[in-house]
């Protein structure tokens, strides 16, 4: 039974990790905190659902929503990134929150406020016995896709020139620019990457959570502690944070009194921040004296 709980926790954690990853990607490169991340994920998920419901096949649906995610990333960059770079963090938070409100309402308008469900799920959700585990193909899919995605991201960032350029921009935008790196293109790329990662997360969770316009902000509320837990700096931190939070949450639902349930991630977060104010893997946030 405990293995079941942990398995569930890991799959939950993978989703948190992916959303947190999207957040951190953008933050590292542009220092913008994107409170609309949840809504971005959700809109791509809705797109995926719509395409899938049109019975054109899983593959088409995936490709279609990924394309949509790319477009979304570009649009977001144009609206948010360029006007907001360098502005005080206050303004960024508020602007992305405003955007999240608009996107959420827009989703409600386009797709109505009804709950949607992906039925039957593209991958079965019945648990099977695999060795000592009781796990469903759906859960395997989540973990598998997440691993592949993270690996791809890792390879891209570390082994390609463009990826290195992104890393350089994250370290020091001014120096990067001086070295001839086209910053504007980097920003677009980062937003696209983040949007893609979130889109995948969105597609993965639909069978479990269903779709509704409020889903974006709900997930963001869970992914934010994860991102902070890992320190908002390193990508590995986001992944670690997400997984840890997912597992802890799953354990908590069983072993803790249920009234604590909704504040649990926050308690963990606050406790951890008291001990390590920069997050688990965090680099101290850059300060200008």
């Amino acid at each position: 039974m405990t293995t079941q709980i942990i398995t569930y926790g890991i799959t939950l954690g993978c989703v948190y990790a992916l959303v947190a990853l999207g957040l951190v990607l953008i933050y590292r490169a542009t220092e913008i905190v994107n409170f609309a991340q949840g809504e971005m994920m959700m809109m791509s998920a809705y797109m995926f659902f719509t395409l899938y419901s049109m019975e054109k096949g899983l593959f088409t649906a995936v490709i279609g929503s990924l394309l949509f995610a790319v477009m979304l990333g570009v649009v977001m960059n144009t609206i948010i990134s360029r006007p907001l770079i360098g502005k005080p963090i206050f303004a960024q938070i508020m602007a992305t929150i405003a955007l999240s409100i608009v996107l959420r309402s827009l989703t409600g308008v386009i797709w109505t406020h009804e709950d949607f469900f992906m039925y039957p799920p593209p991958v079965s959700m019945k648990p099977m016995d695999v060795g000592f585990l009781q796990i469903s193909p759906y859960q395997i899919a989540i973990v598998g896709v997440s691993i592949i995605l993270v690996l791809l991201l890792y390879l891209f960032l570390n082994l390609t020139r463009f990826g290195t350029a992104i890393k350089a921009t994250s370290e020091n935008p001014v120096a990067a620019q001086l070295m001839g790196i086209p910053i504007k293109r980097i920003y677009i790329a980062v937003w696209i990457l983040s949007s893609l990662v979130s889109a995948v997360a969105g597609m993965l969770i639909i069978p479990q959570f269903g779709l509704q316009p409020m889903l974006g902000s709900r997930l963001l509320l869970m992914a934010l502690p994860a991102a902070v837990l890992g320190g908002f700096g390193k990508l590995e931190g986001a992944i670690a944070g997400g997984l840890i939070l997912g597992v802890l949450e799953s354990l908590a639902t069983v072993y803790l009194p249920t009234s604590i349930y909704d504040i649990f991630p926050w308690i963990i977060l606050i406790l951890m921040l008291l001990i390590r104010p920069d997050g688990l893997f965090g680099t101290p946030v850059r300060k200008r004296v």
Partner: protein
Amino acid sequence: MKRRYADEKTWWIPLVIGVTLLIPLGLDSYFTYIFNLAGIAIIVAVGLDLLSGYTGLISLGHAAFMAVGAYASAVLVAQFDWPFLLSVPAAGLIALIAGVILGFPALRLSGLYLAIVTMGFGVIVHRIIIELHVWTGGSDGMHVPVAQLFGMEMSTDRSQYYLIYVFAILMTVSAKRLTTTKIGRAMAAIRDSEEAAQSSGIHLGRYKVLIFAVSAFYAGVGGALYAHTTRFITTDYFNILLSIQFLVMVIVGGIGSIYGAVLGALFITFLPELIRVAKDFLPPDVAQFNDLQAISFGLVMLFFILFEPLGLYRRWQKIRIYWKMFPFNPKQRGETNH
């Protein structure tokens, strides 16, 4: 040495106070009620501006302090028969204590993490209020008795208006005064650079906790007034969306400007209601559009942040400067700093 406030043009303050006192005479109950909500918003927004605008400590959970104040006053009056005149300051004090509690993590955390922790704080307060359901009615919400002042019941919108605005005016003026004192300068120094402030001898810890306390006190008083005005409170109302709304007020009005916070509070409180009234003048298809209010709100927020980040107050200053220099205005160059 000139008298401290000699340079300020203060003649318009009595004028504003006068207008404020006269307004309700021409309004119906609905608009008075909206003004009441705005007055409460002014108090909370001003307090938030002190914290987030002046000192730069972003709070995404300010609604929680308001909740603490609201429930504190409601419980004191309903369960313990405290008089209203005592329950409001007491509510403010209880909120202040909560602010101190939250101030401590502020000492160690950077801006972003602090903001996120304040979000968590909101969730925790929500849970605590529900757990105390013996007093608070839990998730059912709580009906709040009418405020009783000197034997009179403040049950009409108009009487509540005066009650609220007395508080609002007093607290706004105090906040403004605060910013010109040593404390105010310390706050601004902390916002601009914590390291520099510290090296100038400003005790970061003391000031951060202090400002959280003051800001929470404001929100607590606002919450108490809210409880006795709407007469029904639920923890669901004091959620992160509400916290965000207050932050929007501060932004729209202009970060770091007390009068800006007032303008922002008025603007944001009136906006949805104006949309509600305005849609009666719109063609029926648009007016019936269900999501109208939500989308308009988000768009307005976005608009302000992107195009006028320094808020309404800055816009007001620009207007003043324009008229001062008229007709010798310089040719318009791009004014904002891109």
